[in-house]
């Protein structure tokens, strides 16, 4: 797809929560993001799709403050995030379940969840624990087990639960279906919808583009560090090029 043909379609009406403006990110000599722009509205679910190494996770890292854009701006709720360190970004209500899950292996499930709430000044975590254990009952059974001993799927749930503990306004999920048995994939997306309906805006990164677009309002297709397509999720699902490249054939 030719990046010059990106439709200048503006997202649905509403309040812009996150506005990523033409960011360029370098890893040493590698030009990982070559001018990514995207907007997320309040209460939307937005999916980034693209091949491995296209720059999806780097985009999330840049939003979280882990990777600093060399040029371009990231504006969250009207506030420019340049110069805001990663540990302060989460305090603003942006949390992330990162690529590869990144569970703390030698901490118990409960402590992992407590780490998720680290940025909060509100000390009462009871309701949050309840919410996470309700969404992921298996975590409640494994409360005192070290995170490193969980299965891949359980770790994925823990990573999501941990991100929820921050009570984010914008939740970023990097490959939430990774490592999950097919029967759980659907369940995890139900949970994502449920979280969204409770008032959390969601930015998804998924290989499993079909299922992700099903639950999303809009999607962005990223190729080699650039947004090549942006549209409503329902349109992307119908797009022949998208179908061929990301949805397992027409």
């Amino acid at each position, binding site marked *: 797809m030719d990046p010059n043909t990106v439709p200048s379609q503006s997202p649905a009406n509403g309040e812009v929560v996150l506005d990523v403006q033409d960011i360029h990110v370098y890893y040493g000599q590698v030009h990982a993001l070559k001018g990514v722009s995207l907007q997320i509205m309040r209460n939307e679910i937005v999916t980034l799709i693209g091949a491995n190494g296209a720059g999806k996770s780097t985009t999330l890292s840049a939003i979280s403050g882990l990777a600093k854009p060399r040029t371009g701006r990231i504006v969250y709720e009207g506030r420019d995030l340049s110069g805001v*360190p990663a540990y302060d970004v989460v*305090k603003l209500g942006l949390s992330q379940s990162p690529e590869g899950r*990144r569970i703390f292996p*030698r*901490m118990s499930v409960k402590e992992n969840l407590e780490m*998720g709430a680290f940025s909060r000044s509100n000390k009462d975590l009871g309701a949050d624990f309840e919410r996470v254990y309700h969404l992921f009952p298996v975590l409640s059974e494994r409360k005192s087990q070290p995170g490193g001993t969980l299965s*891949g799927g359980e770790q994925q749930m823990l990573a999501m639960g941990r991100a929820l503990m921050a009570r984010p306004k914008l939740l970023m999920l990097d490959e939430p279906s990774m490592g999950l048995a097919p029967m759980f994939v659907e369940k995890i997306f139900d949970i994502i919808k449920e979280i969204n309906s409770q008032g959390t805006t969601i930015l998804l990164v998924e290989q499993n583009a079909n299922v992700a677009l099903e639950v999303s309002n809009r999607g962005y297709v990223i190729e080699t560090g650039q947004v090549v397509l942006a549209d409503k999720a329902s349109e992307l699902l119908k797009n022949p090029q998208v179908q061929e490249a990301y949805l397992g054939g027409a």
Partner: protein
Amino acid sequence: MTAFIQYLFNGLMLGCLYALIAVGYTMVYGIIELINFAFGELFMFGAYISIMMMVSKITLFGHEVSMPGLNFFLAVPIAMAIVAILGVVIERLAYRPLRNAPRLAALISAIGVSILLQNVAQAIFGSKQVSFPTISLFTTAEGQAKSFQIGGAIITWLQVFVVGVTIVAMVALNLYVSRTKMGRAMRASAQDKRTSALMGVNVNRVIAITFLIGSAMGALGGALYGSVYHFAAPQMGFSPGLKAFIAAVLGGIGNIPGAFLGGILLGIIESFGAAYVSSRYQSAFAFIVLILLLCFKPSGLLGSTVSQKA
């Protein structure tokens, strides 16, 4: 039997002194995988600064200077505070700029800091050893150490104090790391700094606090060592620093109870080795233990290897 008890208790006390430096090694290694060789020198400064606070006059840079002449129990916390700040400054200047450099660079920097601090001490306090004032609480009117006997073995109250203080410090530290929010942030940072930052942890601050605590513990060890052996000297930290490093490895590096256990075991092994085999080889026993350990259980006694599943 009398001799056995005597050596056991001597070893226990020596082991406590090692343990106090070893926690610094183990905490810092746990979090940034750096062997901060300068802890031996921070230990030495702990002893010197305690002396400075306790005497009424001291020679600094060859000039006699008046000093406050404080009580031991006031002097030591002051020394700990000063050395703690010194530890944080060292981290800021000598290690943080090398955080993303190859690990060898930071290690060389640590050795450099260690040598630098020895020379600074020599410049300030002179190359001759300075005697550590006696502590009135632990000394009789005749100038003898207050002591009691168990099974014929003579145990001084100062030794008991050293063991007691170490145990209290270790328990407090362990509670701090396992129960408090900052302690949890330390453990999280030791496991995954990037993700810790994502959770809202200011990792640089956590590392600074780790140096602060490790350095204060080392200074406490130095002050106690000085009071037990009645001296301070610029090179006094070298050997205990090395032994403490072995103790940390012995217990499982990164593990605080392990550092305590490793220190005590090492102290007792040295004490018995010196008594029953040969005192000339006292230090060799520590290294024999290190070699055997690395051959048979490189992760240390309490070291675990729970790895993250792929």
